[in-house]
């Protein structure tokens, strides 16, 4: 992974008007001998909508795990709004403003839909133990606010009628949606979506594509999207980064990426570019 990738990297990043919100500077991590992610960089502007694609095992979810503090990068730095995120627990990173959804849905099945959202929202309405146990006035006010916020969000996503049902009783599509609602309830600056379209039918995918753009506009969050559904990614993302075997092989606008030889090779497994078939294989 030498010159070709890095040149694309420097040319591929467009000039950013609203400033960089999430600045990822050549992070990397290895598990034993496996270099899961190497030298990954990304400058995500405020309210940007970027896509992260690549074949299975390319390291996309690992990057999400690095960003959310599940793993600590071996090298490189991550800055959120020019504050360095270093050696932080996942819950601290969420509090700092990075929220995520999960590839395999991870709702709290035995909590109600409302409680799933309130749990995420309570990050910003922390209560003391004593005022909770005495049910003081401040406690009631905060709980009331939290509930209103949660209902507002559920209403926006038209889930309010399901508020009192258990999360596990929702349909698959609704569960995917609730995951996004829950992530938004943490009031993030950056939203990481890990394959939100997986398992949805074409109709639902179309709606999802609209939703993601509207979420970005309405909540003023920057979105980083992992997705295997190419039409969806190509349609909504401003910028796409392609990973293969932990390396960034290409980045640019959807059009540039679609026509890139290395990307086609990575997806179709062509032997055209020998040096691209990674040494890890």
């Amino acid at each position: 992974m030498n010159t070709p990738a890095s040149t694309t990297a420097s040319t591929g990043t467009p000039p950013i008007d609203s400033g960089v919100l999430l600045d990822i500077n050549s992070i990397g991590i290895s598990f034993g001998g496996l270099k899961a992610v190497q030298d990954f960089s990304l400058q995500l502007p405020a309210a940007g909508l970027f896509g992260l694609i690549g074949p299975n095992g390319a390291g996309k979810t690992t990057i999400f795990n690095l960003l959310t503090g599940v793993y600590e990068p071996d090298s490189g730095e991550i800055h959120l709004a020019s504050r360095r995120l270093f050696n932080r627990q996942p819950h601290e990173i969420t509090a700092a403003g990075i929220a995520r959804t999960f590839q395999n849905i991870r709702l709290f099945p035995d909590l109600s839909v409302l409680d799933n959202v309130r749990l995420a929202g309570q990050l910003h309405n922390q209560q003391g133990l004593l005022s909770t146990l005495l049910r003081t006035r401040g406690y009631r006010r905060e709980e009331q606010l939290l509930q209103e916020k949660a209902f507002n969000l559920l209403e926006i996503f038209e889930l309010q009628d399901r508020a009192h049902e258990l999360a596990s009783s929702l349909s698959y599509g609704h569960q995917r949606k609730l995951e996004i609602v829950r992530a938004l309830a943490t009031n993030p600056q950056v939203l990481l979506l890990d394959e939100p379209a997986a398992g949805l039918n074409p109709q639902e995918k179309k709606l999802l594509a609209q939703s993601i753009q509207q979420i970005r506009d309405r909540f003023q969050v920057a979105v980083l999207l992992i997705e295997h559904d190419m039409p969806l990614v190509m349609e909504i993302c401003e910028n796409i980064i392609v990973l293969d075997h932990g390396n960034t092989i290409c980045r640019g606008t959807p059009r540039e990426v679609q026509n890139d030889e290395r990307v086609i090779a990575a997806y179709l497994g062509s032997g055209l570019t020998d040096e691209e078939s990674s040494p890890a294989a």
Partner: protein
Amino acid sequence: MAKAPNSAQIWTSKTNAAGSASFSDRDSGFVRNTLAGLMPFAVGIAMASLLHFLLPGMVGLYYSRIVTDIGIAIIMAVSLNIVNGMTGQFSIGHAGFMTLGGYMAAFTSYYGSMCLWGNTEIHGGFLGTGEWLFVVSCIVGGLLAAGAGYVVGLPSLRLRGDYLAIVTLGFGEIIRVILQQTGKVIESAEALKTGGLSQMIPPPVGGALGFGGVPKYTNLFWVFTILTVTLVIAYRLKRSSFGRGMISVREDEIAAQAMGVNIARQKVLAFVIAAFFAGIAGGLFAHERGVILSPKDAGFQRSFDYVIMTVLGGRGSITGVMLAAGLLTALPEFLREFEQYRLIVYALLLIFMMLVRPQGLLGIHEIWDLWPRRRTTLPPTASLMHSSTMPSQESKR
């Protein structure tokens, strides 16, 4: 989209609706709020007084004693349920906390009485000085147990499931063995005065023989007053941000962290609160008539009884666990005539339950969930996104 409020507005916007019915009093006076906050305690204490004065006359001392035992068992089971049911950590060392707290409470009241009054007789009547010494002793016992709960809670940050269970089991056994190594009880105030500090090491709480001579202060009033406090706190905890945090740890630790829950804090907090009430329950047990505290009480047999109560009641269900604790404490007493078959019936009941209702009596629900309940009304927010561009779910079937 031009008019759509941004996220900051959404998060701070107070809807003009006065809010749901349950919160309609939020702007009323401080006094009313405080009263509402304390009301459950007042009701509980009133009921405890009624029980205390009426029950023995109605059913006799034997059954009153069983009711006292049920009260203590409910405190134990409900507190254990905070760890096992709500937070999903499998602790089978709850009797360890109970016994530790019980010994500490007994130590405080026994030697406290000696220092104050020169003997260990009961002092004062209902709500007399002796009873207040007893309450303070129970709280001291609870605090020591809470400290132990903190220490035992720490490994839960790294261990899961069976491994944590082994640690908590080991904790109970360690308490048992340590208590066996303690010194002889000092029987008179003179000996206590002349002996000096060296006789306090190891603590004179009776060793393997047990701690006899503890003043018997426990009565229905105090058991049910403390039970009230335990229940109110457990319920308020469950329905608060702390409870949601604990349940989220039980459901999915990784997702909980990603939603900003400090899982380490939640787990340790659960252990500390549960151990505190177990310690107090131990204090009640230590001062109960006919009980001689012994190191055996910390063993896993007793811990297991409480685990069974939480499993039968349903994880996280306070009322379910209360029911189970009541049943499982009363049942053996009523099966006493069939002494030799008692354990068989007990075991068959468990097997039957596991086959028919593995989620416990009430599952994750409370008893009032069984009736159709009034739903919290939705705040009729000015529809922020009414007919606009957000995807409609109608098409989604």
